[in-house]
């Protein structure tokens, strides 16, 4: 079995985001990058499946050279090899990322499962997995909280509005990970050492036969939302009730 995991690096999700003065983008000077949390769940799930089914796990990330540490961290967790597709962040939108991943899927040839994060916590787009599934005409199970694979199919439980839904998908299939899917492992020291020798292929869009690089969705400007100002502290439940009834008028 071969599992392809798409991993994105994002600005540390707990850091304060600063904008460039003209609002044209985020100030990335001196930011710290982390692996997108949902992608860590995707990597962990691939490794759990590898332990059970003897799979090869390939990590793919699209971006400039500084996405390489993201691939390395997946390799250190236990993935077998990596692929970096060269691009600039600003030259990508969800649609192009999905078409590049479709190109990698075809380039690899015999992928059984593509695992992605359900969303990248920078753009919060939540669409690459679904777009990819459509471009490859594959079944999808998004927002997965449980994955079981046996006999050429995957049974996936999804976190949806109103409860949990279970689907069965013949392989190959696209699965996007939600946070409760698993608890990502830490890389061990030997894992980190071994990762240094694992291969990372570098591909260009041309290698994947992608010539149409026009963005479908383009950011025009970014701004901070109006700040919500802290209100007042009350001393007792009675005071709180008084405020809710007489000032906020919400009771």
């Amino acid at each position, binding site marked *: 079995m071969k599992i392809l995991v798409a991993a994105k690096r994002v*600005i540390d*999700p707990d850091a304060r*985001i600063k904008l460039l003065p003209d609002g044209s983008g*985020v100030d990335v000077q001196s930011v710290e990058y982390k692996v997108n949390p949902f992608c860590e769940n995707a990597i962990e799930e691939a490794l759990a499946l590898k332990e059970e089914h003897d799979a090869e796990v390939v990590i793919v990330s699209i971006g400039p050279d500084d996405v390489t540490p993201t691939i390395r961290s997946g390799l250190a967790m236990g993935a077998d090899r990596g692929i970096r597709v060269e691009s600039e962040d600003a030259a990508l*939108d969800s*649609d192009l990322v*999905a078409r590049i991943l479709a190109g990698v899927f075809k380039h690899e040839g015999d992928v059984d499962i593509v695992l992605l994060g359900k*969303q990248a*916590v*920078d753009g*919060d787009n*939540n*669409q*690459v997995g*679904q*777009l990819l*599934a*459509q471009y490859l005409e*594959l*079944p*999808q*199970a998004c*927002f997965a909280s449980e994955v079981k694979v046996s006999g050429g199919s995957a*049974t996936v439980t999804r976190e*949806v*509005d*109103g409860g*949990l*839904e*279970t*689907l*069965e*998908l013949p392989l190959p*299939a696209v699965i996007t990970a939600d*946070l*409760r899917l698993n608890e990502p492992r830490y890389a061990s020291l030997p894992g980190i050492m071994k990762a240094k020798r694992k291969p990372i292929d570098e591909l260009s869009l041309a290698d994947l036969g992608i010539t149409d690089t*026009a*963005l*479908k*969705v*383009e950011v*025009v*400007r*970014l*701004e*901070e*939302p109006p700040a*919500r100002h*802290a209100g*007042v*502290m*009350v001393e*007792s*439940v009675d005071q*709180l*009730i008084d405020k*809710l009834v007489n000032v*906020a008028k*919400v*009771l």
Partner: protein
Amino acid sequence: MARILVFADHHDGELKKSTLQTITLARELAGRVGGGFDIVVLGQGVGSIAQQLTGYGAERVLVVDGPAFEHYLAEPSSKALAQLAKSGSASFVLASSGTTGKDMLPRVAALLGFGMVAECTGLAGSGSDLLYKRPMYAGNIIATVKVNTPGAVISVRGSEFAAATESGGTSPVESASVDPGTPKASFVRFDGVKSERPELTEADVVVAGGRGLKDGENFFKIMEPLADALGAAIGASRAAVDSGFCANDYQVGQTGKVVAPKLYIAVAISGAIQHLAGMKNSKCIVAINKDPEAPIFQVADYGLVGDAFKLAPELAEKAAAARS
């Protein structure tokens, strides 16, 4: 004239309020680009859902009814919407950003070759200079984006829009036929969360509990009387859900539901940015937390420092008295 398709989100025979919020954006969009909208109802035995939607000014309510749509599946639903968009020359396809819209709309975008705007919170400009607002970075940044394709697929963040009210007139209900193909994925089962309370995203008052409530038993022992007293829906932080206090359906935040009720009461929730992403547009926020430094107090209109196990029951009792 631009045509707009609005997907009607429904569950268990009930229309979701988010559909009416999506109609509000559709009306605004129609005004900005010049044109009208159709509403699409997919499902099995959904005639009554369609009937509920005839008063909102749609040019048509299109019904696709059949066994292929008994349970929602991404493949046939996205095919149906894309076919209806093509046959009606629609240049916009809208649905609420609930889990159905999130799951299905990108496939529609790929089928139509359109760009997709996720979690749209507003519009700007008009005609071919139309711009869209959407949150990024857990709502810490608002982006203005443009779509470079001849049409756009838009998921709509319901909490940002008032529910549409009926506008008079009656839209004709038409049954539409589509070829849903044979989906590769198959439905196995749905384990629903049953609750007599209002739906989290539809409630005027939400009370939400966090990890500070210790365990599932205490979570409900504290949150239920408070919800009863206020006629509220119950929400939770991710930590409360991860710790198994309550079902995933309760989660508010970047990864869960986005709510903007009149009143939001956070009980023993610290206020991580990922939680704030789901509730900071509430009209009035109350926080109860024993830690005076908890970040939730930075967004709360009213903060009360103390032990939730003592203060929440007292609040439930006194709020019930104040409301009666």
